């Protein structure tokens, strides 16, 4: 919290974070744990009263739960507004990374313009955990087939009983191609969290995606 005071922000005008920082973070983490356990299944986090645009509730919840002074955070052009940066510094204390390469977490609010996945840290062969988790805000997210809109991703891998279909609107056109490259360097690679409103879904590096 001191970071915000040092940089002289008027904290009285900052959006609030979790109403109960301890128990709300616990509840939000359990949704994330479920998302990384039951891969491809959409989880819903609780609403947060005030969130600086353009962050959605799921992205805000992710940051409040996991980001802190040990996790450099990269914001894309759309997310990198002063109000967002101030809010993240105040509530998480996370340093902002200048480039995707140096980030432990990245927030992408405009996926159409996002860097390809190989710009984010994939970890090392001996420490594949030193990788980036990229949170991507998408237009729509639903389970199963036949929504008409969106791209159907057929998922397979750990955390999935057989195969699972996820319908996503708003991923960049090159997504499937770069995901295959990301999956190919397993156990290195980035993990993704797709968010939309209060919904989130995890796509860890070990997931095979057809679609």
């Amino acid at each position, binding site marked *: 919290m001191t970071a915000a005071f040092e940089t002289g922000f008027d904290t009285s005008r900052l959006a609030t974070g979790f109403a109960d920082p301890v128990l709300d973070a616990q509840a939000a983490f359990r949704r994330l744990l479920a998302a990384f356990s039951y*891969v491809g299944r959409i989880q819903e986090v609780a609403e947060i009263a005030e969130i600086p645009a353009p962050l959605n509730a799921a992205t805000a919840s992710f940051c409040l*739960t996991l980001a802190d002074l040990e996790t450099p955070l990269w914001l894309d052009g759309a997310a990198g507004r002063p109000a967002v940066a101030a809010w993240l510094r105040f509530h998480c204390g996370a340093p902002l990374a200048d480039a995707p390469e140096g980030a432990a977490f990245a927030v992408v609010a405009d996926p159409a313009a996002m860097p390809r996945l190989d710009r984010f840290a994939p970890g090392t062969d001996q420490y594949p*955990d030193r990788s980036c988790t990229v949170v991507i805000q998408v237009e729509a997210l639903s389970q199963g087939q036949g929504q008409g809109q969106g791209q159907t991703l057929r998922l397979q891998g750990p955390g*999935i009983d057989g195969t699972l279909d996820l319908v996503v609107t708003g991923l960049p056109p090159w997504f499937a191609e770069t995901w295959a490259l990301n999956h190919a360097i397993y156990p290195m690679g980035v993990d993704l969290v797709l968010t939309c409103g209060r919904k989130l879904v995890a796509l860890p590096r070990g997931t095979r995606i057809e679609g």
Partner: protein
Amino acid sequence: MTSGIGAAEPMQTTRAAIGDSDPDGADRYNYAYLDEQTKRMIRRCLLKALAVPGYQVPFGSREMPLPYGWGTGGIQVTASIIGPDDVLKVIDQGADDTTNAVSIRRFFARVAAVETTEATAEATVIQTRHRIPEQPLREGQILVYQVPQPEPLRKLEPREGETRKMHAYAEYGLMHVRLYEDIARFGRIATTYSYPVMVNGRHVMSPTPIPKFDNPKMGGNPAVQLFGAGREKRIYAVPPYTDVRSLDFEDHPFAIQRWDECCALCGAGDSYLDEVILDDRGGRMFVCSDTDHCGTRRARGHTGRLGADAATAAAAKPRGAAR
């Protein structure tokens, strides 16, 4: 047993239970004991561990109010995930009523205000030492293992730098050679506990000192399996529906322990049995190591060889510190 969270009760100072008023707040414990920054660090590690099943994620283990060997790694994992809506079960070698299990259960009832249970089916979080419950787990349940030694290759290679490379490049030949030497010497693989597994076709992992009887339960399980090693500062995980195979050879396939007898109390023929000495004249019986499983079966009317007498005797034996 005179130190730690058992008899010595250092938790007297715990005014952390939520809702407690504590005007100065100076010596309060946080909810679930750990401070929020530690929880965040462990939570980040847990997600990485799930993303790379079987890979050991290093973490900054914290001092806990109990000695290593009491499951500090498992306790830190449980403390980082648990919330007031959870129902916690703690087992030690299958039993809910050992001093260790009772102490850990009380600890979390106190610092995290959770409900506790001995019934596997009712629990949302199960912390375990050396067993997987007999009752099949379901989606949404989380099994937290206490891990004394997370490195399956440690006996073959004492240097951490070397084992890390072996995992990085999937150089698991040594492990196979070791198992094959077992066969050459004993005609079979003699390892019965901590029998190594291959997870997701990529990482060799220690299942912790569970009997190899439990190994087949790890693969394709609908529940989440998390592993915490406090002294060695490692966290690893097996997500639901993940391929877990016990290492073996075509001509010597993996096989679990079998008993000629059934449980003397409940008659179960498919559970893991412990041998119990009855008297000094060589009398003995085999009973389920999973006390909840055995009790549930008996409550449903199942009876073993020694029937009601043995059940009464077992019930009369001294229980743990509580209950």
